[in-house]
């Protein structure tokens, strides 16, 4: 035991220098070359930062494409899911309330067609994306609110849709923040 204490402490100190000082500094150094310089990529409108591309934000107004429900209310100094189990009765009441609210704001939508992600909270509470279907189901509401044609808005969603990785892996997504920035710029 005694023979091992001194090497253990010395080895720990050396590895601290390598793993906790050199390694993260080198990674941080190289990452300055990445988009956003390793600080997180921001989205700017007219020179003003309106958000981080990867961090979802709260969109609840009728004139914007709404983002998903969030367990942390899109406060990005924290992050969490709801952690509600599938059979929890209180949770199912919440989902029912979200369905009802959605139908009030989007008259004419068939309940069965509501994409599940619009009435369930994401894992991080900061989900930046929607599926194209979840964006398009909101088009009629926004068209009415902004007096823009449904076709133009559907086209906008298609333009903003990011296809699967290599064309085949994973779901198609639409970044809600970028979509709404583009929406504001439509004439």
């Amino acid at each position, binding site marked *: 035991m005694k023979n091992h204490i001194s090497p253990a402490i010395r*080895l720990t100190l050396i590895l601290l220098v390598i793993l906790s000082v050199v390694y993260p500094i080198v990674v941080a150094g190289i990452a300055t070359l990445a988009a956003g310089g390793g600080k997180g990529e921001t989205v700017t409108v007219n020179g003003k930062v309106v958000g981080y591309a990867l961090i979802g934000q709260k969109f609840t107004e009728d004139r914007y494409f709404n983002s998903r429900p969030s367990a942390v209310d899109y406060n990005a100094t924290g992050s969490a899911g709801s952690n509600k189990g599938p059979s929890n009765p209180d949770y199912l009441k919440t989902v029912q309330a979200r369905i009802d609210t959605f139908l009030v704001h989007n008259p004419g939508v068939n309940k069965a067609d509501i*994409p599940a992600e619009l009435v369930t909270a994401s894992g991080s509470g900061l989900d930046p994306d929607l599926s194209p279907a*979840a964006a398009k189901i909101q088009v009629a509401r926004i068209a009415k609110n902004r007096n823009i044609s449904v076709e133009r808005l559907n086209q906008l969603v298609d333009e903003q849709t990011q296809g699967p990785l290599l064309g085949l892996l994973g*779901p198609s997504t639409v970044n809600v923040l970028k979509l709404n920035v583009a929406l504001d710029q439509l004439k």
Partner: protein
Amino acid sequence: MYGLTLLLAIPLGKYIANVFKPESANGPIERFIYRLAGLDSSRDMTWKENLIALLTINAVWLGFAFTLLLIQGSLPLNPDGNPSMTPDLAFNTAISFMVNCDLQHYSGESGLTYLTQLFVVNFLMFTSAATGIASLLLVVRSFLPKAVDTVGNFYVFFVKAITRILLPISFVVALLLAFSGTPASFDGKDSIVTMQGDTVGVSRGPAAGMIAIKHAGTNGGGWFGANSAHPFENPTYFTNVVEMVAQVLLPIAMLFALGFLINRRRFTWVVYSVMTIGMLCLLIPTLVTEFHGNPAIAQLGVIQPTGAMEGKEVRFGPLASAYWSIVTTIISTGSVNSMHDSSMALSGTMELLGMMTNAFYGGCGVGFLNYYYYLIIAVFISGLMVGRTPELFGRKVEAREIKIASIVALLSTLLVKGGTALAAWVYINYPNGAGVASDLVGKPSAWLNNPANHGFTEVLYEFTSANANNGSGFEGLGDNNFFWNYATGIVLILGRFIPIIGPVAIAGLLAQKKYVPESSGTLPTDTATFGLMTFAVILIITALSFFPALALGPLAEYFSLK
């Protein structure tokens, strides 16, 4: 995704085997490290001495990590002004990262400083993974046809595991993440005004490097609270693939490395097949149930063509989330890209079973050690069945080895079910923490985030995860209090070191025994029949031990949802 992992794992296994061959030389970096640490790299040690070395250095880390967490609030590199930890939380956190578990009873954004993220979490992620790899290498000589007293040098295995394997892999993964959008700079949190006019903060930090080793070393603790569901921690489907491959890579590669080192490829393939079949048995039901969505939500009239979405991210979808949830529980990563608490009931069962066996690939190095004691038991039982002396690679397996293997196998049942029973007892008898216990247990009636069977599963999951050194959680559980921090802390330590000490001791004892060349009288251990036998042993031990608990928790919920 899985094919890519396998494609990388075989050559990596060969490379690892070359690194750890007894005759392979130390490079200048390793020699420099040995010299500064005052180590004699050429000295081989007995299994006992190696275990003492391993436990000593782990004790040093524990003391160091605990101290740093207690005073982090007054130390530098704390741009967000986060506070120091309470003693019980620091105790739990220090142990949790030392043992490669990474159960987190705090959220990274507010619970740690950049200093402790790097000097405690990031550091222990490397060293705990390297400890696991080194422990596996300590059993290698018991497979070789020569009786020996010494089993190698822990320090050499440990240092090389970091310099030759973990650091290079992490570095590559870190850069892939950083260039996909994961923050890597030391800037503190930012504040922005959103398009709707809300002012919100955005936490950041030098996270890319830590997230890389979190997967390469099967650690699993997140920089951010939501772990790999957080869009900074796992920005795209591409990074999801990278992180997924990174976490399965070493557990599989270590298995192949072992095969090359002991020169028994057939045996390796049998073990690999058993593990893979085990994984598929857990994976397929999970994929199906998640893809079908939540039946309770279907009853509300929503069709869910894209599957269950509660606790899941749109960019991954239910299939990649389901695949991850099984991978992360069968190997001991415990990182999550969806919230397991909101998984379907059947998926919850499979996640629990993955952690209960903990040997379908398993953690970095320690996965095979878990498999090793199943193997010893299988050799013993099948030896008895056909009336032959139980032997493993030309060495007799006798009472002492069997006793150790059985104790290790039974210990996990005791820790998981004992812990769950204790928590249930406190929950029922002290719902308001009244009287003596109020300081100790907080308010137990507020522990659970879900009622009925699902609430029970939250408790069972927490202890299973602690014992398996997994680190994922049904995170609805209110676990940052005296009771949970100490109870799981103790389970963590026992669940880590007993399954290392046991197999290393068995291997050390076997290695000393006379080698009897295998003959027609030997029961072959590299056949499909024997593989099946091992699978049956795993199934019986796990099913018999844990079925009652599973029936009370997720299985009951599953049938109530039908």
